[in-house]
C-alpha cells in the first residue's frame, strides 16, 4: 500500500465548543488507484484532505491517527521536513473553488512553475519550459502562460490548478470538489482530463465530492462519509449496486434517474450538529433501520462481502 491512513480523528476548537470533524477515519490507497470520498457538505471531507497536506487551520487539533506514506509517517515528520519531502512533491492537492486558488497579481505560468523553482531549484527558463508543457498536458494553449488569472475562464483556471498540482509529478493528488464551481459540460471535460491523466501518469486520486454519480465515474473505490466517519467503503461497483449502510442506500435513492419510473426520495431529518452529535451511531436519528443498540453505542467496523461498513446491522 502506498498510503495507509489509520484512525484519523480531528477536532476544531470553536466558540461553541469542540467540533468533532473526523472520527477514526481509516483507509488505504494503492498506486494508480482513485478513491472517491463522498459526503454532504460539513461531513469532514475537506478536513480529511487538509489533514493529509498538514494544512489544517490553527484551531484544529489532531487527536489521533497515523498516516504512513511509503514508509514515512506524515504526521510525525517535522514541518520543514514534510514541506521539503512530501508536500506537493509526493502529495498535491486541487482545492475547492479554483476561482480563488490563483494569486491575482502573478502570471499563471509563473504560478505553475513556482514549485519547480522553489522546490527543485530549477533555473527559471527550464522551469518555465516545464510549466508550458504542463499547461499543454491539461489541454491549454501555451499562450495562457502569460495570462493573469482574471483573464481566464473558470474551466481554464481549473485546468491551471490541475497543471499546478501535477508539476512535481506527485504520487497522490487530492481533488477537493474540483468541478463543483463549473457548469456541466466543462465538468465533463475536466473529469475526462483527470481520467486521462490518471491513466497516463498512473496517479492516485483522492477525489472528494458531494456528487456520488460523479465519484462513481472516476473512482475505483468509494468511501461514503457521514458526520466525520467513513460509514462504508468498498469497490465502486459494490457500493453503488449493493450498498450496505442505510445512509448509502438512502443516498443512492435520492439520485434522480431518467430510466427509472420512480421519483427520487430524500433523507429525512438533517445532518447532525457536530459540536453536539447524537450519542451512539450518529446516523440513528435519520436511520430507517434503527435498533436499540444504535442509541447507546458507537458502531464498530464490520466487513460485509467486499465492503467495510460501520453499522450495527452487520453485528453477528
Amino acid at each position, binding site marked *: 500500500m502506498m498510503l495507509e491512513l489509520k484512525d484519523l480523528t480531528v477536532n476544531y476548537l470553536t466558540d461553541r465548543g469542540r467540533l468533532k470533524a473526523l472520527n477514526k477515519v481509516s483507509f488505504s490507497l494503492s498506486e494508480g488507484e482513485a478513491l472517491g470520498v463522498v459526503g454532504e457538505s460539513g461531513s469532514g471531507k475537506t478536513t480529511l484532505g487538509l489533514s493529509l497536506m498538514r*494544512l489544517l487551520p490553527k484551531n484544529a487539533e489532531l487527536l489521533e491517527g497515523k498516516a504512513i506514506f511509503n514508509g514515512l509517517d506524515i504526521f510525525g515528520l517535522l514541518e520543514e521536513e514534510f514541506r521539503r519531502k512530501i508536500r506537493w*512533491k509526493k502529495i498535491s492537492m486541487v482545492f475547492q473553488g479554483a476561482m480563488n486558488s*490563483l494569486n491575482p497579481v502573478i502570471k499563471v505560468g509563473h504560478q505553475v512553475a513556482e514549485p519547480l523553482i522553489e522546490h527543485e531549484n530549477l533555473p527559471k527558463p527550464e522551469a518555465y519550459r516545464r510549466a508550458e508543457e504542463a499547461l499543454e498536458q491539461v489541454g491549454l494553449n501555451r499562450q495562457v502562460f502569460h495570462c493573469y488569472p482574471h483573464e481566464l475562464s473558470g474551466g481554464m483556471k481549473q485546468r491551471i490548478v490541475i497543471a499546478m498540482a501535477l508539476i512535481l509529478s506527485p504520487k497522490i493528488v487530492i481533488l477537493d470538489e474540483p468541478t463543483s464551481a463549473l457548469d456541466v459540460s466543462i465538468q465533463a471535460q475536466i473529469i475526462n482530463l483527470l481520467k486521462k491523466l490518471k491513466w497516463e501518469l498512473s496517479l492516485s486520486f483522492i477525489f472528494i465530492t458531494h456528487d456520488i454519480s460523479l465519484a462513481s465515474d472516476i473512482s475505483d473505490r468509494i468511501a461514503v462519509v457521514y458526520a466525520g466517519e467513513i460509514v462504508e467503503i468498498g469497490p465502486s461497483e459494490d457500493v453503488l449496486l449493493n450498498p450496505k449502510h442505510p445512509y448509502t442506500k438512502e443516498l443512492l435513492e435520492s439520485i434522480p434517474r431518467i430510466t427509472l419510473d420512480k421519483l427520487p426520495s430524500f433523507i429525512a431529518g438533517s445532518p447532525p450538529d457536530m459540536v453536539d452529535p447524537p450519542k451512539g451511531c450518529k446516523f440513528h436519528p435519520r436511520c430507517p433501520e434503527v435498533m436499540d443498540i444504535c442509541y447507546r453505542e458507537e458502531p464498530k467496523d464490520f466487513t460485509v462481502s467486499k465492503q467495510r461498513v460501520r453499522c450495527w446491522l452487520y453485528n453477528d
Partner: protein
Amino acid sequence: MIVGKKLALRGITLLGVLFSVLLLVVVTLGATGLSDNMLKAIVSDQLRELRTSLAQTIRDPLELEKVLEQRRNQLYDFYGLDEPWYNRLPDLIIRVLSLDLGSARNLKSFSGSSKVSDIVLERLPNTILLVTTALIISGLLGLYFGVKLAIKAGTKFDRFFSYLSSISYALPTWWLGIIFILLLAFQLRIFPPTGMYSSPPPSDNLLKFLDLLWHASLPILTLVVASIGGWIYSVRTMVLNVAQEDFVTLGRAKGLKESTIMKRYIIRVAAPPILTGLILGLAGSLGGAILTETVFGWPGMGRLYYDAILALDENVIIALTFLFTLIYIIARFILEALYMVLDPRVRY
C-alpha cells in the same frame, strides 16, 4: 499605447476636477456676498485712514467728501467692486490656473513680501519637516507593526496592540499636544513648548538645525502617537483579508517558504490599498495640520490657511485651495499609474 491614452484621459478628467473645485470656491465666495463684503470692508478701512490724514489738510467738509468719494471710486475700480462678482472672480481662476498665484491682500511673508508664492514657499518646508516627517514615521511603523500583528492575529500580543492602536486612533491631536506640552515641556523640561527656534537662535548652522529638530520633536511625537494607531489597524486588516484568501493556502500547499508566501502572496496583493493610504497621506500632509501647528506655534501651511480665513484674504484662500487640490490631483494621478503596474486586474 492604449494604457498611455487611458492615462492621458485620466489626467484630463483630474484637471477637470481641479477646475470644478476652484469654480466651487469662487461661487461660494461670490454668491454668498462674502467676497463683496470682504472687499468693501478693506475699502472702508483704507478710506477711514485717508479721512484722518486728509482731515488735517483739507478743512472744507464738502471738499473732503469729494476727495474721499473720488478715492472710493478708484478703490472700487481697483478691486473690481464696480462689477458684479461673476465678472470679477473668473479672472482670478484663470490667473491662478496659469500658476500666477498673485499677491495676498493683507497677509505678508516673514520677510515682508506679500506675493502668495513667497508666503507659501516660506511655509511649505516647515510643514514638510513637521507633518510629512510624522506621516512617514507613522506610516512605516504602521506598516511594520500592522504586518506583525496580522501574522499573530488572535493572540494576546495581537489583542493588546490592537487595543492600544484603537486608543491612539481615538486620541484628539490637539489634546494630546497640550498634554505633551504640560508633561514634557513644563514638567520635565525635556522639549521646548512652542516655536521653531530658541530665541535667540544659535548662529552656527549645524547647531541651528539641531535646535530646529529639538523644537520639532514634540509636535512630531504628538502627530505620530495620534495617527499610528489608525495605520497599524488598517494595515493589519488589509493584510489579514488577503491572508485568508484561498490562494494563500494553495501557496502554502505548494510547499513555498513562509517568507515567500508573505512577500509574494500577501503583501504584494495587499500593497495597492496600503499604498493608496500612504500616497494620499503624503499629499495631504503638505496641507499641514492646523490644530497641531496652532498648539505648537509652528508656522506651517495649516496655520497659513487658518490665518488667511481669519484675515479674509480671498487671494490666499483661493491660491491655497488651488495648490492643495493640485497636489491631491497629482497624487491621484501617480496612484492611477501605480495601480496599473501593481495590480494587473486594474485596466480602465
